[in-house]
């Protein structure tokens, strides 16, 4: 197997699988949308094509059958009903699992579950059975012949003659399957020979049902853009022609048309002469998704970067010529200003290459919600907003898991059963909205449901029951703080633990992961009306605005997003509670952590006069960090700490400051952990 072709195939197929994932769920809601049906058909067909090239037999088997099913569905022969949905989704899962296995390095795929193939065949089989019941015998014999033909080779003339004879003898056979039978016998990957084409035309003529109203036929969208018409496509075209009498506008999309040759004197048109459907290329998405380790970058962006690098070299040359001479300070200032511009632009350009649409994460949710809703017997509509919002590649990957948790929670705990919703005067179908938008240098993600909402009193009570706080402390929590209790480890109000959610683990994980991304979570809820969970994360992980604090010579960077307030340390405002120093901050007791005890433990201090307290938010709690000095804000580039330091908790990385020295970036959850 050619590794390079395989990689190309995997990248392309991953896109198709993502699209199919969306389309299949959409299709369930509008099973007769012919554009969608064609798109799905095309998706399976293209995957099959690639798999065929690489001889990945199990994949071909499934795709081919799925494709057949959709061919029937879009021709109106089979309905996309619940049975079909289940089987097709199963087939889709097999395909997407196969992709994963191939991505993981597997080169041989296991055999397909025979039951799946049978079920898929059964879906198309419905069509075959009908004509058998009411058609003449010759139809069956035509089918047999087709099956007997060499599936790899072109159809020989003899076989063809036989088929034609049969066809003629069948006389009044009108059902489609007789016409369908021909192409199944021929090489699905090969070009159609003139003979075959001719034969098909003859068939058409002899079938007696040819009528002049089918003068213009739409070429199906699945047509190979390279120009060779495959049998399936041709077959579909013929079917269309036949069914066009019944459903005149089955393929309304403006695809190239071929004129039906005048009856009786077919001028042997070569299929290659058909106009190339260049529109097909446009149908593919512009934004390509990626495999784990690669990013596709628009060439224009690369050109921009190259251009800027060129500028950078020019500035360097300029600075080099200025070096050493009796430099005019103004020249130097100009050069430095230029350097400033170029690097800023370059930084922005390089960052853009890392950006990906949030659609990559959102894409999986329609299916997740659909499956969950069915399992739970709920009716749920998922709305996606702001899918095109760009996000750093690493963030896109890191956000996937937390969002899955939150969406599952909304579906499981938020949305009520249809009868309860109806009784409450709400529409039976619940709505979950997953939205993303950019706010300055942050991305705001929100999951909103119109479910039952949360009862702060129940949460308070639960907190007491779990021993997290005493009754009095619980009663003093405002509603917002009560909602935030659900982020605590081991906190679940679900009466029953299901395999979907309710173990009280998920939200804790979500909180930790979001905190790792320097993000924050906000929970809002109204009893009976629904809940909204908002996540704010920085646009990129690579550059971080920080607050620089210092101990003597050493500087440390605190992520600015977490910093809430800075004030002078005043020992009169602190008190020791249970061995922990606390400070009053806006009517709240906040624990104080003296960073020098950790960062400069060799120089113990007993007087903190003149020190500053930096109030930071860590998850849903606050902490006061006591530092020597505050040096101001700085945007830093995060660099990983070297080897042997991965175990040192409390650091998120290091960075090089404006004066060339190294500052360590504090990882606040880790810092708090150290002090607890």
């Amino acid at each position, binding site marked *: 197997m050619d590794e390079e072709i395989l990689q190309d195939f995997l990248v392309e197929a991953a896109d198709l699988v993502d699209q199919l994932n969306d389309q299949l769920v959409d299709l369930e809601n509008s099973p007769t949308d012919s554009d969608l049906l064609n798109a799905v058909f095309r998706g399976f067909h293209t995957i099959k094509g690639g798999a065929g090239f690489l001889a990945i037999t199990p994949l071909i088997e499934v795709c081919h059958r799925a494709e057949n099913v959709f061919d029937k569905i879009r021709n109106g022969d089979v309905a996309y009903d619940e049975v079909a949905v289940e089987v097709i989704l199963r087939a889709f899962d097999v395909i997407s699992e196969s992709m994963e296995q191939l991505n993981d390095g597997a080169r041989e795929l296991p055999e397909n579950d025979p039951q799946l193939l049978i079920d898929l065949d059964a879906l198309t089989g419905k069509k075959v059975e009908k004509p058998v019941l009411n058609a003449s015998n010759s139809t069956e014999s035509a089918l047999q012949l087709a099956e007997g033909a060499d599936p790899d080779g072109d159809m020989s003339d003899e076989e063809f003659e036989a088929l034609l004879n049969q066809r003629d003898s069948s006389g009044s056979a009108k059902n489609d399957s007789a016409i369908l039978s021909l192409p199944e016998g021929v090489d699905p990957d090969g070009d159609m020979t003139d003979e075959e084409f001719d034969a098909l035309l003859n068939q058409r003529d002899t079938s007696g049902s040819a009528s002049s109203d089918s003068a213009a036929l739409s070429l199906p969208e699945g047509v190979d853009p390279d120009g060779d018409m495959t049998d399936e496509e041709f077959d579909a075209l013929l079917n269309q022609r036949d069914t066009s009498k019944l459903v005149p506008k089955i393929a309304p999309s403006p695809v190239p048309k071929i004129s039906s040759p005048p009856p009786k004197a077919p001028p042997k048109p070569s299929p290659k002469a058909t106009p190339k459907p260049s529109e097909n290329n446009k149908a593919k998405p512009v934004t390509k998704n990626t495999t784990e380790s690669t990013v596709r970058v628009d060439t224009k962006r690369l050109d921009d970067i190259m251009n800027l690098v060129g500028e950078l070299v020019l500035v360097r040359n300029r600075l080099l010529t200025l070096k050493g001479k009796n430099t005019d300070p103004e020249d130097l200032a100009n050069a430095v200003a230029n350097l400033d511009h170029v690097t800023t632009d370059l930084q922005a350009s390089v960052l853009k290459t890392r950006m990906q649409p949030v659609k990559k994460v959102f894409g999986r949710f329609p299916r997740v919600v659909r499956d969950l809703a069915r399992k739970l017997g709920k009716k749920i509509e998922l709305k996606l907003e702001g899918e095109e919002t760009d996000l750093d590649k690493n963030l896109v990957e890191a956000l996937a898991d937390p969002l899955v948790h939150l969406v599952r929670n909304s579906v499981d705990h938020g949305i009520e059963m249809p009868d309860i919703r109806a009784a409450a005067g709400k529409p039976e179908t619940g709505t979950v909205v997953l939205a993303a938008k950019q706010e300055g240098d942050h991305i705001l993600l929100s999951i909103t449901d119109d479910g039952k909402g949360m009862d702060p009193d129940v949460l308070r009570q639960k907190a007491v029951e779990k021993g997290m706080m005493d009754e009095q402390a619980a009663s003093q929590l405002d509603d917002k703080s009560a909602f935030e209790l659900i982020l605590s480890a081991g906190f679940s109000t679900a009466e029953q633990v299901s395999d979907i959610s309710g173990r009280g683990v998920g939200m804790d994980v979500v909180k930790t992961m979001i905190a790792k991304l320097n993000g924050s979570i906000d929970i809002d809820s109204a009893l009976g009306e629904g809940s909204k969970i908002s996540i704010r994360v920085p646009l990129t992980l690579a550059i971080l605005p920080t607050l620089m604090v210092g101990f003597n010579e*050493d500087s440390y960077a605190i992520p600015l997003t977490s910093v809430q307030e800075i004030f002078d340390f005043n020992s009169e405002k602190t008190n020791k509670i249970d061995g922990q120093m606390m400070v009053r901050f806006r009517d709240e007791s906040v624990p104080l952590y003296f960073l020098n005890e*950790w*960062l*400069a*433990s060799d120089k113990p201090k007993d007087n903190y006069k003149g020190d500053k307290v930096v109030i930071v938010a860590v998850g849903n709690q606050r902490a006061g960090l006591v530092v020597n000095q505050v040096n101001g804000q700085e945007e830093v580039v995060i*660099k*990983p*700490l*070297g*080897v*042997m*330091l*991965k*175990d*040192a*908790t*409390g*650091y998120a*990385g*290091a960075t*090089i400051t404006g004066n*060339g*020295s*190294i500052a*360590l970036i504090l990882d606040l959850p880790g810092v708090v952990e*150290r002090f607890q």
Partner: protein
Amino acid sequence: MDAANEMPSFGNNAQIDDYGDEPAYLGPCTRCVLFTLENEVYGIQVKKIREVLRVGNIRNVAGAAYGVLGVINVRGVIVTVADSRSMYNMPSREIDDLSRIIIVELDEERTVGLLVDFVMEVKDIPDDKIEPLSASKEGASRYIQGIAHFQDNVIILIDVEHMFAGIE
């Protein structure tokens, strides 16, 4: 550089001849950077070493593992610096003008700085002068690949892979 390790050039042999007490040697050699710790000579294979730096500012990292002095900035890359003395359980020593940091490349992604007392020279050591040390010995010897008796020196060849094995 790899080719140079295996194929001693005449230039190198001429250098060996300068010492006078060793016959010209044409067999396979290992090219090493030699440095001293407590008056002992140690060697690390050149192909493992990216560069040797003067000691600049080492930024200490509170809570780091034993033997880690801190991190340095090598042209925009943060590199951890370990004290080679602590690796061999020697008392640490003040950094002076002769101290150097040897930047060791374990692989493409992992780079470590090793603080040493003094870097002597780069030398080709004939492979037949190297006595491999069995790995079974206890304690400090686990970082030692072999010992070379060469030109009146006893050179302890360090197995850097082992020295930093298991670190991530």
